[in-house]
């Protein structure tokens, strides 16, 4: 089990859960980081942060300290 910020560029993962229950964590869920959602790590900004992810057919950028809340697992099969 790892967090989204630890995933390498180009990795495809599935969301396990989002840590915490504050507004930011709730927002991450509302944006599509719900269990079993598939995430691709697309690109990172020239200075290494934020990173661009794709999920549900759209592209969303998260900072490292936001991505750390998303616990992910490797895609099985």
């Amino acid at each position, binding site marked *: 089990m790892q967090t989204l910020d630890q995933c390498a560029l180009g990795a495809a993962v599935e969301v396990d859960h989002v840590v915490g229950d504050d*507004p*930011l964590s*709730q*927002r*991450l869920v*509302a*944006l*599509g980081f*719900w269990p079993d959602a598939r995430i691709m790590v*697309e*690109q*990172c*900004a*020239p*200075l*290494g*942060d*934020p990173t*661009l992810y794709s999920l*549900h*057919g*759209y*592209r*969303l*950028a*998260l*900072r490292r300290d*936001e991505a750390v809340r998303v616990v992910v697992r490797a895609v099985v099969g």
Partner: protein
Amino acid sequence: MISEGKELTIAFAGRHNAGKTSLVMGLTNTTQRPVNFPGSTVHRTESTVTVDGQNLRAVDLPGIASLDALSRDESVTISYLRGEHGQEIDVLCVVMDASKLRVELSLYRELTSLGLPVVVALTKLDIAHGEGWDIDVAALSAALNVPVFATNPYTGEGIGELRNAVLAGSMHPSTPLAKDPSEIADQVMCSVKKSTRNLTERLDQLFLHRVLGLPLLLLIIYGVFQAVFIAAEPAMGWIETGQGMVSSWASSQLSEGALNSFVVDGLINGVGSVVIFLPQIVLLVFFITLMEATGYMARAAFVLDRIMRTFGLSGRSFVPMVTSVGCAIPGILATRTIEKERDRIATIVVSPLMSCSARLPVYVILIGAFFPVAYAGTVLFSMYMLGIVVAVLVALILRKTVLKGGVSSFLMELPHYQRPVWRVVGGQVWNACAGFVRMAGTIIFAASMVIWLLSYYPRCQVIHDAYEAKIETVEQSNSSDEEKEKAVLELQNRLRADQQQQSFLARAGKAIQPIFAPAGFDWRTTVGILAAFPARELIIPTWGVLYSMGDVDPGGYEPSLLGGEEFDRSSGLFGQLRDSRRADGSRAFSPLIALALMVFFALCSQCMATLAIIKQETNSWRWPVFTFTYMTVLAWACAVGVYQIGRMMGYS
């Protein structure tokens, strides 16, 4: 059924980038009017259309991601949707981006809890098709149990049907979803072809490139600047010529005296000095809107976020600050793209520190008069750097004190690149310019009047009579006509200077000169500073009058002058400043004093238009007052610092 003649309110809600604004503009065919939510700085835009005698009021709400607000504008939108503003919403139009239907449906599920009559507008179906998906609109409508319309802002498809359905009043309150949003999405989305690597991905490989991303951004910004300043120049010339024609016509129609001076110097030139910026504003707003509409702005924020965060700002603060190097007014308008209120206010408050184009003539004249040509470029560049460095430091301090708060979250969608809907771009440019012209016509008009009153009155009859007598003598003398004319002009200029020297403004300048003495400024410079508070370049015509040179046009002092071969630093205002003496016979200026004065101009808040736009954009007097105070105090302190430290180091 909705009764005849009643106004029908339709509110548009959806995520950021869902395409609400294009849809609303397509629906009502009119440009939108920004309306502030009561007691907040958040804008919603409204527009009205009349169809068959029935008014349809379309309210375009700021984007939301869920009914739990993270930011201020979201919370205002949500309380509006909940009816807490006391305004009735007849129909809620949920705008859904078809290319990410799954996430859209999760927001839709939350919105059904509001119990409002709902209609759904699907947008960006072309993008969904491009990614290999087709959406069964009828099945979606059946699954949600509300009408669903597929819309396209480029062709207008579906928009008329949506409007007719709303006017027919056939909506009924939405019902909770019977199934899970993901299940519905699976049911209505069918894969028609394999998704290929699309244009957005390929463009992002380039624009977000680890090495090329940042240089490309700088290149684009530089290109926009060049385009704006080059393209605005002829139009600014026309305005200047037009203003000249209007003032000379007014001058010829009115007899010499107070009314003439009031109309020409006070009103026409006062308002004209602000309207002259309109072409730059039109072009800058156009390019910024274009960057926003194509989707590039989100990329710029993405690339720069890390740097801006160091100073307590976010990636979105960059464009307003860069724009402010041209003019703070479009820069401040560009802060509307910053979602978080505190980031936005911090950006608004520091943007006027960027050295704008109105400071340039002041720098040019002082550098030209007091610095060798070899150092001119370096001194000019360091003035621009000073503005940037101070802006960043002030932002950092503000974010740690009055605008304290955790760094706002980023969570930014990078939308698909798309070609702009020109009508929408045009409408947004129009809105920005109409606001600016309204402001020039009211606040600036009033302030110009006050400054004119202070610089014209009181008139001293004794001085007037004395000069009239001298002019009379010259005209009666038997010198040549040419000599007479020259002598009369000279006397008229001296009359103006003497009258101005005892005006309220000059008296105030002399009275407060002790405040500026620690910075080395004499009373004429102090008067110039006072006169320059409405617009900083006004110090040049004021100097012109005080040094009895007649009318001096700040537009004549261009940077190219500094490198010119035939540049004569002993002539004109350059020479007057160099030779100027104080009452005790010592020189009024030195390179050190010129430097202190430039630092003062770099940092001081001397632009009514900027303060007015801050008032407009923050919807409060608090921030313009704050900006004016901190900038003026900072400018004074830094000017004094430069002069005093310079003196300690042995310069005079």
